[in-house]
């Protein structure tokens, strides 16, 4: 069943549909929020707020095949709001000591991924904000370039350039991982 179908059913009072939607997207939303907020614990908090908002706003959702963009717009707003409450003036994820950056890996087999994730966090910190935001929307949120362009209020070709530059800079710093 598509996201749109689940949203329509959810808006009509079918909680099972909402549950499926949350379970389908929670890992992706958490990954995105953990990257932006720099803390998995906070990410879980904000992910809950995000899905509560999705639930509350279901009636206003138009099923036009753009659920992911809509969902991450909400997640992005919730993250901004959280950062604002923490008195961080700008939306600058992963910028160092202000953030509770990451938790230790939960299991031994996660170690490589944890270290890679941490290496990426450090590398992303050196990128210009715009490139970083495009990258996070593309990779952590897995949005398409057209959706990213809509979110950032720019053209698809501009997004393509932002992503290309971001990846070129990251490759220099993460080359050992390939």
């Amino acid at each position: 069943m598509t996201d749109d179908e689940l949203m329509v059913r959810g808006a009509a009072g079918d909680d099972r549909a909402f549950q499926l939607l949350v379970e389908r997207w929670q890992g992706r939303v958490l990954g995105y929020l953990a990257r932006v907020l720099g803390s998995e614990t906070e990410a879980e908090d904000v992910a809950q707020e995000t899905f509560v908002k999705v639930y509350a706003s279901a009636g206003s959702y138009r099923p036009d095949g753009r659920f992911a963009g809509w969902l991450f717009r909400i997640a992005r707003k919730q993250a901004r709001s959280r950062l604002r409450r923490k008195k961080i003036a700008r939306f600058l994820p992963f910028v160092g000591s202000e953030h509770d950056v990451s938790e230790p890996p939960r299991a031994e087999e996660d170690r490589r991924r944890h270290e890679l994730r941490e290496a990426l966090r450090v590398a992303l910190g050196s990128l210009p904000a715009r490139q970083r935001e495009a990258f996070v929307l593309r990779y952590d949120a897995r949005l398409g370039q057209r959706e990213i362009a809509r979110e950032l209020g720019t053209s698809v070709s501009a997004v393509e350039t932002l992503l290309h530059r971001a990846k070129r800079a990251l490759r220099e710093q993460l080359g050992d991982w390939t």
Partner: protein
Amino acid sequence: MTDHVESRLSAYLDGSLPEPEAQATQAHLDECPACRAAYEEHTRFEAVLLEATAEVAPREAIWPVVRSRVRPKEPFRFTLRFAGGMALAAAAGFVIALAVPRPESTVASTQTDLWTSFGYGLVDGTPISISVVEEETEG
């Protein structure tokens, strides 16, 4: 390799090139070893990025928390269970109301009425306590 070509390769890998451009890029990769090598490097790095940005599993399920925060309050329904609860509460209230100490002048008669109504005996015109009754029973 120019920025433009790398950018095209990146977009091709991303699957975001329009079909005619994607076909042309594939045709070029088939013929050009330098671009093919660059493309393979892109592919390896892309795999690293995807691994580094894999989904994060929640420590506890999110749905139950969300559900509990958005669940509308149950509409009021008068049920037998509710009626039973109300009756019990009324009875408890009645007992408490009778047990609350009154002004001196009314205590004796009230207590007498109370204990009489519950079937306990009186000793010299004053109500006996439950413990006294139990001791006498055990004795």
